[in-house]
């Protein structure tokens, strides 16, 4: 069980910690989904459009990580 005496206001701290954990989860999910889309033959432009971000943004964030995994991606639009 968690000891709550170290947190200033336990309920509030729980809620805020949930936000942090959820952000991390969303980032992990984004990486996994971007990778999956690229494997399925999506272009970076299409992925960017689906995520409602610029192609530069999504490419900058993930290109090296996904390349490091040895994933074959369509790169002609980069």
């Amino acid at each position, binding site marked *: 069980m*968690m000891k709550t005496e170290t947190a*200033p206001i336990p309920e509030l701290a729980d*809620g805020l910690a*949930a936000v*942090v954990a959820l952000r991390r989860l969303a980032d992990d999910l984004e990486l996994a989904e971007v990778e999956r889309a690229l494997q399925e033959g999506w272009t970076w432009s299409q992925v960017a459009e689906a995520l409602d971000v610029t192609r530069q943004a999504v490419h900058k964030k993930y290109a090296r990580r996904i390349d490091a*995994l040895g994933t074959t991606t369509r790169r002609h639009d980069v």
Partner: protein
Amino acid sequence: MFERFPRSSRRVLQRARDEAAVLGSPKLEAEHLLLALTRDEDPVVRQVLATARLEHDALRQALEAQDEAALASIGVSRTAFALPPNRPLTRTPGWSTSSKQALIRAKTVAAARHDGHIEPPHLLLAVLRAEAGTVPRALAFAGVDRIGLAVQTETALAGRR
């Protein structure tokens, strides 16, 4: 910015970068500093962390438990998503607010003690003094008395010379 960091604490910062990268974290967070400190050779750091039995693996588990519990509190479970394991980061992670805060606090701690250098025990004390965020929550999960540990670090620092 790091001119008052001797080789010993630069080693901690480098290890913290490695910890963040291995965990696939785009930012170097305070918890990565603490993970790095659990593998440090500084005698004060070793002594303090040994009394709390705070080893690298135990801290990793506590961090995961904290993360799981935080998600569970809003009805979310990681297992509901088909997520691959941690993806290592290939670039150098940037500083997060929590780790920047820890560096600033370490400088303040050293200055207050008139210590010319920011050494690993100063970094440990700085990380332990955070009252909110992932580190204090994970330490609570690990059953570690964070405040007691901070006091112990201060005492050990004072008794060093």
